[in-house]
């Protein structure tokens, strides 16, 4: 960690370097252990299987339910990953080390957020084709992929901040979904409606409001999380 922070350089490039090195550290650790992604993945695939039996997804129901089923899966898998990624930092004392680094603390937030987003994207990249094959629906729709990305950004932006909080509480992993779900309801509604709009081939005018909500949510919550992250890691 420390050697990659070259203090000789300009502060701004220093900041981006810090973000990149935190992201890189997470990815490298995950590449070695593959603990988190494999857990998220197996969990997601199981949820999709359960959906088949729970909802009797026949051909007719599939079109209207697919978007909802996918987002429930992503949301649940997302909390698993968020919990894990912050718990690792806490348990091995990495967070304290990161806090000592001579760099703005929000760099930690962005570093963690990008790595969490990356893990979620990997899970999504595997779940979507899997779902396509299992339920015989074509999910390779550029609009759907864009919405999936925007939704994940909003979800992870809030999730990273809240995970940093919940990991410091007594109840830890139980608390994260309770804190996260009520706050991310706009993201989930908008993402589900926009995704199903694209899947059903609705007109852009019907999808647009959802798209706008996602953009607004992403901007507001990234900005606010960036501003308040200091309060969450302060000792």
């Amino acid at each position, binding site marked *: 960690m420390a050697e990659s922070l070259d203090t000789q350089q300009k502060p701004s490039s220093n900041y981006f370097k810090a973000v990149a090195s935190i992201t890189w550290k997470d990815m490298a650790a995950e590449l070695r252990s593959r603990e988190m992604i494999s857990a998220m993945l197996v969990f997601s695939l199981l949820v999709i299987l359960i959906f088949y039996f729970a909802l009797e997804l026949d051909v007719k129901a599939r079109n209207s339910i697919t978007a909802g089923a996918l987002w429930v899966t992503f949301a649940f898998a997302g909390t698993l990953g968020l919990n894990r990624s912050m718990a690792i930092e806490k348990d091995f004392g990495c967070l304290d080390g990161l806090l000592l680094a001579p760099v703005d603390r929000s760099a930690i937030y962005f570093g963690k957020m990008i790595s969490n987003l990356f893990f979620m994207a990997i899970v999504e990249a595997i779940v979507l084709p899997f779902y396509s094959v299992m339920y015989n629906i074509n999910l390779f729709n550029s609009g759907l992929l864009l919405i999936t990305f925007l939704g994940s950004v909003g979800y992870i932006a809030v999730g990273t901040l809240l995970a940093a909080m919940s990991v410091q509480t007594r109840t830890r992993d139980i608390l994260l979904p309770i804190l996260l779900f*009520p706050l991310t309801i706009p993201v989930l509604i908008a993402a589900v409606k926009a995704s199903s709009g694209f899947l059903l081939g609705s007109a852009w005018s019907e999808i647009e409001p959802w798209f706008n909500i996602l953009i607004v949510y992403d901007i507001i919550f990234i900005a606010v999380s960036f501003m308040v992250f200091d309060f969450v890691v302060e000792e």
Partner: protein
Amino acid sequence: MSPQPRALKTLNILSVILVLGAFLQVILFTPYEEIMGPVQKIFYFHVAVAWVGMLGFIASAVVAVIYLVTKDLKWDVICLAAVEISLVFFFEAIVLGSIWARRAWGTWWTWDPRLTTAAILEMIYLAYLLLRQGLEDPERRARFGAVYTLLGGLSVPLTFISIRIFRTIHPILIGGGGTDTMNMSNSMLLTMFISIGVFTLVFITLFWHRIRLGFLREEVEHTKLSVTE
């Protein structure tokens, strides 16, 4: 803890009298709505407590920001007070609304934007209380609580907007309309504004009491620490 100041004592008495007065106004001096009949009279207190819930909700978000800026623990006590009162009043608003909906729309629950947003707000506030419960250190509890209330304050309007768009694309099957289509005579409007005014006063009174309770509890904690040390 000092005894209740005279202003608070006056507020106590005033609140009780005015709530009873508003209740009599609703029951005796307001005409029945033609179609719905007596059950429509729930509406006046329903709107009033929902309004108070909103007041508490806005107050908690504002106070959370003040706490984060000043780092003075007294603002945390005030924030918790606002959240708690808001929680109680939104609960009442939801229950009253659902009793009304049962008669007016034939169902206990509709996924109306206002109703649904109120329910999500309750969830956010319950999550807030759980978050506080999991933290020992008062200073950290205050910080995390303030951050969470602030995030809640930002997400709730977006939730409301998204549910509203959600509803307009999928029209309500049962009932429809709601308060917008209700024919309100002048005396009904008057009763509504009286109720809103009265419950704003009740809010101030309860808020004051709850803040005093918060400070008392802090004092207890301090004395406890001084004994155990």
